[in-house]
């Protein structure tokens, strides 16, 4: 019985892995073959081999590391500032109806503005240097974290709050021991969404006004007519995004053992 069960899982596993690895492999091989036979124009869509070769070159020359470092510092600083502000603001709007009302119109108007539209304004306010980019990333992160924190607080189960009332707990204890832990899962959702917003803002800022960073690398590659370098930039952002998301999910699982 046990063996049979194991065997079943194994066959299923093999099938899943075959699909997981096989489909992208077939895709890559066809892409390479079509490129080699000049069916796909290499100056529009370089072959996978060409992209990997460019990746190797840019690592060897150190240029990828330089751009990547500039980008990751901006993202982390902007994300940290935006997330902190978002959590604090989310607590205030989630807990106090008056605060919520006070900022409802202002936030309602500001939130739908696409981040890319703010780039010129932030350059005017904060200069062309690091500050304007970090602020843009922070603002982009802020909205997702704010909304999800607020949602988490407002959706704390009233049944838990009744328990606190029955036990004559103070407002502070109720906040620290019930509302805060109850909203942690929601806050994490906000952080994950905020991080992807941070990457989007980074690329926007770097493409419009920068001299280094992965976003700059992409737009510079267009000027050089080097599509393979563009792909190196795009894939870097994609892979780093996935790695950070996995790390946040792991942290979440560690912190939230109860779900």
């Amino acid at each position: 019985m046990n063996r049979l069960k194991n065997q079943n899982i194994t066959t299923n596993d093999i099938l899943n892995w075959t699909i997981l690895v096989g489909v992208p492999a077939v895709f890559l091989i066809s892409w390479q073959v079509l490129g080699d036979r000049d069916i796909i124009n290499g100056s529009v869509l370089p072959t996978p081999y060409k992209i990997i070769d460019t990746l190797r070159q840019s690592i060897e020359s150190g240029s990828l590391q330089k751009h990547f470092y500039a980008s990751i510092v901006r993202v982390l600083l902007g994300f940290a500032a935006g997330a902190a502000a978002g959590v604090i603001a989310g607590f205030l709007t989630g807990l106090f109806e008056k605060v919520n009302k006070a900022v409802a119109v202002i936030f309602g108007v500001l939130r739908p503005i696409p981040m890319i539209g703010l780039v010129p304004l932030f350059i005017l306010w904060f200069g062309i240097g690091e500050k304007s980019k970090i602020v843009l990333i922070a603002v982009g992160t802020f909205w997702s974290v704010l909304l999800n924190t607020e949602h988490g607080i407002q959706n704390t189960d009233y049944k838990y709050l009744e328990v606190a009332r029955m036990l004559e707990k103070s407002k502070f204890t109720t906040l620290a021991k019930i509302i805060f832990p109850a909203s942690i899962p929601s806050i994490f959702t906000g952080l994950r969404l905020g991080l992807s917003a941070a990457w989007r803002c980074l690329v926007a800022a770097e493409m419009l006004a920068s001299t280094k960073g992965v976003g700059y690398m992409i737009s510079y590659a267009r000027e050089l007519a080097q599509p393979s370098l563009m792909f190196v930039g795009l894939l870097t952002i994609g892979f780093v995004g996935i790695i950070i998301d996995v790390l946040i999910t792991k942290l979440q699982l560690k912190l939230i053992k109860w779900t």
Partner: protein
Amino acid sequence: MSGIQDDVLVKIEDLYKVFHIDGKPVEVLEDINLEVKQGEFISIVGASGCGKSTLLRIIAGLETATKGKALFENNVITKPSIHCGMVFQESRLFPWLNVRKNIEFGLSRRVDKQTKRDISQQMIDLVGLAGFEKALPRQLSGGMQQRVSIARTLVNNPKLLLLDEPFGALDAITKIHMQNELLRIWKAEKNTMILVTHDIDEAIYLGDKVIVMSNKPGKIRNVIPVDLPRPRDRSSIDFMNIRRLIYKEFFEETEYKIEYYL
């Protein structure tokens, strides 16, 4: 406390409760009068929607009466108090705290760490959960969760324990175990109990008195004393007689029909 009625812990006088649903007033409780003596075990039984939970929530201070008053130790109840504990149908444990921490959360007076630990350990032993101190609520069965919930309420040593269908979600066998546990705790802690239930057997098995409530609006239909020694035998003639009496309150017409066809 007044000297005349010092053994009366809870007193309900001409109490009415009206809810507004969709703008229309709906009478939930009508003309409720009730006295609960110190140390008594009262069962309130009624169909769902008869307002029995609302009555309990008014005694708890979670809701206010529309008319009339509810008194606890001769004071009008306006808000929850730690002298009055409540056990809900769902255990309402905090999923992020383990058993010990959940119970310690219940403690409302300030004590040092060691005392806190001693009290929670005492409660854990009382409800028979020794060895599960570090378990999270989701790792416990429904019956065990409810034990933790009872322990969390008992840490403040409340004079009055309100139980809102506490065993309603448990299976029949666990339920019987929990009823015996509750009686054991009641004997050990000597507090006053008010239990709301829709289970007629449970009401008779546990209560000194069974208060039968009618539906829409919720009124006290009858108060039936249960003068049987504990532990009670659910299949004894006396128990059955009381059960028949209560069944009649609910299903009078049906009973008539059966007799007619016989």
